[in-house]
C-alpha cells in the first residue's frame, strides 16, 4: 500500500475535519476501554498473567532461532511447508508460486495484517486472482477499497449507515426494499454473500495469532468463525505470519490467550480459537489438501538485540490504540501505513524506516496509557523516545526545532546565564499579557496560540521573587 506517514500532519488535519470519522471514533473511546477494564477487574490474576505472558515472549525472542527451527521441523512432519520470506516482495512471490501451481482463481481470506503489510490484495488482482475478505470488517473495507484503520476492528472508522449504503450499492441482486437498519441484518447479509465463496475458493488465507513450536500448529482467534471456514473449506491453506508469532508450547499459547481477548475486546476468550496443524490427513474427512506457512521477516530480525526488541512481544490486541488520545482524535488512517496507534508509532519506523515514519513516534504526548494497558508491558513511550533519539542523531528533525532546542539547552546548562535571560523575558511577557493576563498570539508561538491563549507569567520569576523576599541562597554552585 502507498505509505502516507510522511504527511501525517496533513492526514490529521483531514481526519479532524471528517465528521463521519469523528462520529465513528467516539465508539472506540466509549466501547473498548470500559470492557477491557471490566474484564481485567474480573480476573484477580490478570496482572500476574501479564507478567507471565511477557516472560514467555521475552524468552522466545531470546531463543527465536531455536524455536523457529523446532517449529519448521514440526510443520514439515505434519505434511505442511514453511517458506521464509525476507521482505514483502519475497512473500508475494512465494504466494504467487503457490497460487499459480494450484491454478487459483479465487482466494478467501481470514483477517491478517501481514496481508496488508505485503499488499497482497492488490498484487493478487494484478495477477488475475480474486481475493475475497471474509471478516466482516475487512469485507466492508474491501468493498470501499480502503485499508483497515485498526488492527482488530478494521472498519472502526465507518458508521453503520455508511455500511448500509455500501451494501445497497454492491449487493444489487438482493431486494432493494430489505431492512438493513440493525447491525445484525448487515452481518447476516454479509454472511449470506460470503458463504457461497468459501467452497469456491482455491486457496484460503489466514493470519496467525500464534505459531506453536512444540506442535507446528498455527492458531487464529476470531469472533465470526470466518477464519475456520476460510482455512477448512479452501483446498489449500496458506498461513501468513511474521516470525515473532512463534511461541514455544501449547501451554504458553493458553497463557497468552488469557490476556489477549481481555485486553482487546474485554471478552474472556474470542468466540473462536482455531488451531490448525498441517493439511488433511488420510483419515480426516475434510480439510485442505495443502498447508503452507509464509513466515515473514520484513525487518523484524533487525530489531532483535536492539532497543526495539521488546516491540516484538506485541500480540496485536489493539489495547494501546484503544486507549490512545491521539488515535481517538485522528483515527488509524492518519498514521499512513498498516499499523496505527502507539504500537504503529514504534513498529512502523522499524519496518519502513524512520525517514518515512518519523512523525509517528513524535506524535505522542507520552501520556503512558498505552503502556499501562499493554498486556505484554511493552514500554511504548520509551521506544518512541528511542526513535526520537535516532532522528536526533541523524538530524532528521526540522532545523528550526533543533536550533530552538539547542539554544534552550545552552541556557539550561548554565543556570546563571539562564537566570539573567529569563529575568528580563518574563516581566516583558507579563506586560504583553496586559490586564487580561493572557496572550491571544505571540510571535514564534503560533503552535500554542493557534487554538489556545497563552497564560501570561506573573512577572518576576520564582527565583527572583524568592531571593528578593530575603531568603538565603541554598545553592551550592
Amino acid at each position, binding site marked *: 500500500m502507498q505509505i502516507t506517514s510522511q504527511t501525517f500532519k496533513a492526514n490529521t488535519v483531514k481526519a479532524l475535519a471528517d465528521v463521519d470519522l469523528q462520529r465513528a471514533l467516539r465508539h472506540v473511546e466509549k466501547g473498548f476501554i470500559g470492557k477491557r477494564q471490566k474484564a481485567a477487574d474480573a480476573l484477580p490474576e490478570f496482572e500476574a498473567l501479564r507478567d507471565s505472558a511477557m516472560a514467555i515472549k521475552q524468552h522466545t525472542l531470546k531463543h527465536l532461532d531455536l524455536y523457529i527451527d523446532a517449529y519448521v521441523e514440526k510443520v514439515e512432519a505434519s505434511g505442511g511447508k514453511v517458506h521464509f520470506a525476507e521482505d514483502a516482495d519475497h512473500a508475494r512471490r512465494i504466494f504467487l508460486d503457490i497460487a499459480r501451481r494450484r491454478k487459483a482463481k479465487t482466494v478467501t481470506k481470514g483477517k491478517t495484517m501481514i496481508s496488508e503489510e505485503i499488499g497482497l490484495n492488490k498484487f493478487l488482482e494484478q495477477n488475475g486472482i480474486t481475493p475475497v475478505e471474509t471478516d466482516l470488517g475487512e469485507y466492508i473495507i474491501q468493498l470501499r477499497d480502503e485499508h483497515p484503520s485498526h488492527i482488530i476492528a478494521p472498519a472502526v472508522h465507518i458508521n453503520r449507515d455508511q455500511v448500509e449504503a455500501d451494501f445497497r450499492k454492491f449487493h444489487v441482486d438482493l431486494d432493494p426494499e430489505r431492512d438493513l437498519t440493525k447491525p445484525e441484518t448487515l452481518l447476516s447479509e454479509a454472511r449470506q454473500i460470503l458463504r457461497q465463496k468459501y467452497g469456491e475458493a482455491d486457496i484460503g488465507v489466514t493470519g496467525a495469532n500464534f505459531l506453536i513450536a512444540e506442535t507446528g500448529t498455527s492458531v487464529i482467534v476470531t469472533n465470526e468463525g470466518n477464519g475456520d471456514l476460510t482455512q477448512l473449506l479452501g483446498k489449500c491453506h496458506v498461513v501468513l505470519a511474521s516470525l515473532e508469532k512463534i511461541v514455544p508450547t501449547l501451554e504458553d499459547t493458553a497463557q497468552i490467550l488469557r490476556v489477549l481477548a481481555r485486553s482487546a475486546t474485554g471478552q474472556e476468550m474470542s468466540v473462536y480459537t482455531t488451531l490448525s496443524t498441517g493439511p488433511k490427513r488420510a483419515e480426516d474427512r475434510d480439510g485442505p489438501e495443502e498447508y503452507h506457512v509464509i513466515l515473514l521477516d520484513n525487518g523484524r530480525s533487525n530489531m532483535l538485540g536492539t532497543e526495539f526488541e521488546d516491540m516484538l512481544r506485541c500480540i496485536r490486541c489493539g489495547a494501546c490504540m484503544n486507549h490512545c488520545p491521539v488515535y481517538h482524535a485522528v483515527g488509524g488512517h492518519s498514521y499512513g501505513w498498516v499499523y496505527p496507534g502507539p504500537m504503529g508509532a514504534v513498529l512502523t519506523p522499524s519496518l519502513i524506516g524512520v525517514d518515512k515514519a518519523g512523525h509517528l513516534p513524535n506524535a505522542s504526548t507520552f501520556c503512558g496509557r498505552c503502556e499501562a494497558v499493554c498486556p505484554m508491558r511493552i514500554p511504548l513511550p520509551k521506544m518512541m523516545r528511542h526513535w526520537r533519539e535516532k532522528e*536526533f542523531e541523524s538530524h532528521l528533525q526540522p532545523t528550526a526545532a533543533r536550533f530552538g532546542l539547542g539554544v534552550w539547552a545552552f541556557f539550561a546548562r548554565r543556570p546563571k546565564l539562564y537566570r539573567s535571560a529569563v529575568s528580563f523575558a518574563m516581566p516583558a511577557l507579563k506586560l504583553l499579557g496586559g490586564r487580561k493576563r493572557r496572550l491571544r498570539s505571540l510571535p514564534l508561538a503560533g503552535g500554542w496560540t493557534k487554538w489556545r491563549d497563552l497564560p501570561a507569567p506573573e512577572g518576576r520569576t520564582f527565583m527572583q521573587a524568592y531571593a528578593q523576599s530575603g531568603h538565603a541562597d541554598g545553592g551550592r554552585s
Partner: protein
Amino acid sequence: MTANGQESGVSARLKETSGHRPTVALFVTCLVDLFRPSVGFASIKLLEDAGCRVVVPSNQTCCGQPAYNSGDRQDTRAIARQVIETFEGYDYVVAPSGSCGSTLKKHYPELFADDPVWADRATQFSAKVHELVSFLTDVMGVTAVDAKLATTVTYHDSCSGLRELGVREQPRKLLRSVEGLTIKELPEADVCCGFGGTFCVKYPDVSNAIVGKKAKHVESTGAEILLAGDLGCLMNMDGKLKREKIGVEVRHVAEVLAGMTDKPPIGGKL
C-alpha cells in the same frame, strides 16, 4: 541551611514534638519558576507546615525533559548531572509537578543505566525525589491542610504523576480537608489533556482536539476552579478554556492546599 528564618505555627509545633526536621530541596520546575511563582511559594508553605526545612538551590533551571523527549540524550545527561550534583545532598527533593518529578525519579536512573560513574548516583538520587502532594501525604504523613476555600473544584490527573508515580488519591484526600471546598469529579480525569510538552506545538491541531474534549468535560462538572498538579497541563487547559470562553478558573492544586488563592488565577479571569 534553612530557607527562611520565620516558621509557621504548624511547623513550629511539629518541631517541638519531633526532634528531626528533614531538609527538603525544592525543585521549582522551569514552568513554575517562569510562569507561576505562586506555586513555588505555596509549595514552601505546605512543606514547612508539614515540618520540613525547605531549601531552594539557586543552581537549577529545568529537569531536561524538553531535550529528553526530543531525543537529545547528550544535553539531557548534562542537565541531569547538574541537577543530581545540586540536589543529592539533601534529605528529600520535592517538585510541584508529577512530570518533572517523574523525570528525576524514574528517568534519570534509566538515562545513566549504562554509565559506570553515574548509574548508582542517579539511582540513589532518585530515591529521594518526590512529587509535592504525594510527598506530603505518603512521606510526611499529612492528612489535612490548614486552608479554607468556599467553592467547587474539579481535579485533572496529570499523566506522569498518575501513571508513573501513582499520584491519584493523595491530592483528593488533602483537598477534602480544605474547609468549605466541594470536589466534583471530572469525567475522564485520567485522560491526557493533550499538552505533552513540545507535542502541543509540534502537532497543534491534534493537541487542540484532545484539549477541546478536556475543556468540555471540565465545563460539564460545573466547577468554579480546575485544579491539577502540573503547570504544563494547567496552562494548556487554561489556554483552551479561555479561548472557548469557558469561565472556569485554573489553579495549581498546591495553591488551594496552601490557602494561597489571593493571586489571580492562571491566565487571569474571563
